[in-house]
C-alpha cells in the first residue's frame, strides 16, 4: 500500500500543478479561494483514488479537479469566465467541476457537498460497482447540519464514502477553537460508529496512506471513514474579500510558509530518494502547462447569452431557445 516511483512523481506533479495554477491566478486574474498550502492533503487523498471514483469539493475548488488529474486548460479558462471553460464560464472559480475525472460537484454552499457525496456512495451501492466517493470539506463545514446527517446516513447504510476534512484551522476568520465544542474533527466519528483518523496534512504520503486504508475499507463494503488532515491556508480566505481584522498571527503564517510548505517538504523527500532529475523535469513541464493554459484562457471567447438558456434543462419544456433579455 505504498506508492510506486511513477505514482510519487505523479503526486508531486499534481501538487505542483495546483500551486502553479493558483500562482497564475494571483498574477493574472485574482479571484477566488486558493488552496496554496493545502496541496499535500488534496494530492495525497486523490492519488489514492481511481479515475472512476467520485469526488465532491468546496468553494476552495481549484485543487480538487487538479488533484484528481483533470486537464488544466478548461479549468484555467473557467477562472477567466470563458466559453471554453470546464463549466462554459458559468460556474467560475468556486465551481471547477470536471465529471470526466469524477469530480461531480464543487459546492460554494458550505456543507453542500456532504449529501451529494453520500448520494454518489448510495448510487455506487445500488449499482453494485466497486467505486468509492470522496468528499472534501473544511473544518468550518463540519458545523453544518448536513455533516452529521450525511455521515450518519452513510454509516447506517455502510456506504463507500470517505469524508475528508481539509482542516486548515480557520473558516474565514473563525478559528476551530472558537467554533467547535472540541477541536478535533475526527472525534466526531465515534458518535456515528465509524472510524475517525487524524493525519498530518502537510505530508503527502501520510495522507495517501490513511486515505488508501479508507478507500480499501469502502471498496470492500466496510463503510465510511472520517479523515481529518491538519493543514494550513497560506493566503487570505479569498482574493476578493477584504479582511479588516487580524485573526491569526503573522508568526503563525510565516512559520507554515517557511517550515511546513507541502511542496517544499515533498520535493525534499523525492530529492532525498535520488529523484532530482525527475523533479526538475516535472517543474519544467508544469510551468509549460500553466503557461499554455493561461494563453488558452486569455484567447478564448466569452460565453453568449444563448448559452444560459441552453444550459438550463436537459429536457427543455415550454421554453423558447433564447428568451432574449426578459
Amino acid at each position: 500500500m505504498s506508492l510506486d516511483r511513477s505514482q510519487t512523481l505523479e503526486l508531486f506533479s499534481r501538487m505542483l500543478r495546483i500551486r502553479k495554477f493558483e500562482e497564475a491566478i494571483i498574477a493574472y486574474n485574482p479571484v477566488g479561494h486558493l488552496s496554496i498550502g493545502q496541496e499535500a492533503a488534496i494530492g495525497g487523498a486523490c492519488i489514492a483514488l481511481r479515475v472512476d471514483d467520485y469526488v465532491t469539493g468546496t468553494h476552495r475548488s481549484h485543487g480538487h479537479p487538479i488533484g484528481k488529474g483533470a486537464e488544466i486548460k478548461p479549468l484555467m479558462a473557467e477562472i477567466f469566465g470563458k466559453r471554453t471553460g470546464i463549466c462554459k464560464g458559468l460556474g467560475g472559480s468556486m465551481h471547477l467541476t470536471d465529471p470526466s475525472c469524477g469530480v461531480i460537484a464543487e459546492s460554494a454552499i458550505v456543507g453542500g457537498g456532504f449529501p451529494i457525496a453520500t448520494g454518489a456512495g448510495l448510487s455506487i451501492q445500488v449499482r453494485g460497482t466497486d467505486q468509492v466517493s470522496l468528499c472534501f470539506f473544511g473544518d468550518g463545514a463540519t458545523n453544518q447540519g448536513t455533516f452529521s446527517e450525511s455521515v450518519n446516513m452513510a454509516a447506517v447504510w455502510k456506504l463507500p464514502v470517505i469524508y475528508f476534512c481539509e482542516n486548515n484551522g480557520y473558516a474565514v476568520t473563525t478559528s476551530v477553537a472558537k467554533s467547535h465544542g472540541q477541536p478535533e474533527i475526527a472525534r466526531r466519528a465515534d458518535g456515528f460508529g465509524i472510524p475517525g483518523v487524524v493525519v498530518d496534512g502537510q505530508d503527502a504520503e501520510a495522507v495517501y496512506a490513511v486515505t488508501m486504508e479508507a478507500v480499501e475499507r469502502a471498496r470492500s463494503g466496510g463503510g465510511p471513514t472520517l479523515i481529518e488532515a491538519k493543514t494550513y491556508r497560506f493566503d487570505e480566505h479569498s482574493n476578493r474579500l477584504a479582511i479588516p481584522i487580524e485573526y491569526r498571527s503573522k508568526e503563525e503564517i510565516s512559520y507554515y510558509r517557511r517550515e511546513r510548505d507541502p511542496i517544499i517538504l515533498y520535493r525534499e523527500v523525492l530529492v532525498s530518494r535520488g529523484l532530482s532529475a525527475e523533479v526538475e523535469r516535472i517543474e519544467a513541464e508544469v510551468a509549460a502547462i500553466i503557461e499554455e493554459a493561461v494563453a488558452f484562457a486569455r484567447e478564448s471567447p466569452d460565453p453568449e447569452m444563448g448559452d444560459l438558456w441552453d444550459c438550463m434543462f436537459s429536457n427543455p419544456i415550454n421554453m423558447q431557445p433564447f428568451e432574449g433579455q426578459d
Partner: protein
Amino acid sequence: MSNSTQKLTYLQAIVEAQREEMRRDERVILMGEDIAVYGAQSLFDEFDEKRLRNTPISENSFVGVGVGAALTGLRPIVDLTIASFCYLASDQIINQAAKLRFMTGAQLKVPLVVRASTFYNNRTAAQHADRPYPLFMNTPGLKVLAPATASDAKGLLKAAIRDDDPVIFFEDITLWSKKEEVSTDENLLVPIGKAAIKRQGSDLTIVSIAGCLPHALSAAEALEREGIRAEVIDLRTIVPMDKETILTSVAKTGRLVIVDNSHKVGSVASEIAAVVCEEGFESLRKPIQRVAAPMVHVPYNGALEKQLFASKDRILSAVRAIV
C-alpha cells in the same frame, strides 16, 4: 398500447406510477421517512431494500443524497412526505438540484423527483399544512407539478421520473382518496407543461390549482344552472406554466378567476394574474380575481381551517364580482 383501466385512488395511482417505473428501469429508487406508512408498503413485496430506502429524519441531506445519486446514474424519487418539511430541504433543492446542471455548463443532469404532499384541511395546524408551491416557482431549473386527478397523478409522476431534470411533485391530500378509472398503459405519460381544460365555456375562465379542482367544477356546475358557462382549466404543471391554454381561454372569455390554495401574496395565482395582465391585457374585460388562502396561518381548529381554502361558495362570490 392498452386501453384497459383500473379504478384507483389518487394515492394508489401514485404508488402504481412508482411500481411501473421501478419495474421498467432499475435505476429508479424510492427514498423517504417511513415510506411504507406513506403508501409504498406494497412495493416492499416486489423490490428489495436496496431500492426502497427508509431514511433517517434528515431532510436536507436525504434530498441531497438524491441529488448525488441522480448525478451518478440513478433516478431517485425522494418522498418528503409532508410539504411543510420542504423548507428543511430547500437548500439542496434550490442551491444544488436546480442549479447544478447550469453551473457545470450542462455537463451534468439531475433526474430527481421530489414528492411532497400538501397536508391541509386535516387539523394538523400551521407547521404541517403548507402549500409551498411558490417556494419553487421563483428558482429557475425546477419543474413543478400539482396534479388534481388520479390519472394525472399517475401520468405526471411517470413523466417526472423519466424526465432528466429535477421535478417537484406536489400531492394534494384532500385528493388522496378520490377514485377514478386510470389507464393501465405503462407508457401513458401526461406531458409536463400542459394544462387540462376540464370543462369548456365561453363566459368566464376559472384556472384551478391542485385540490381546488373539485370546488371549481362544482362552482361551474352551479353557474351553468344560471346560464353562465365557465371554462375550467386545471393547471396541472405550475412550472413551466402553460400560458397558451390560459391566454387562449381568456381571449375567449375576457374574465378570469384563479383558485389557488396557497397563500394569496406571492401565490401561483399572482403569477398567472401577472402573465395574463402582461400578455392578455387586451382581452381582459374585468379585474382578475384571486381566490386564495388569506395571509393568516392555518389554525388547528378544523372549522376555521376549512374557511381558508377554496370552496364552491368562495369561487362563486369571486365570479359574482365580475359577471
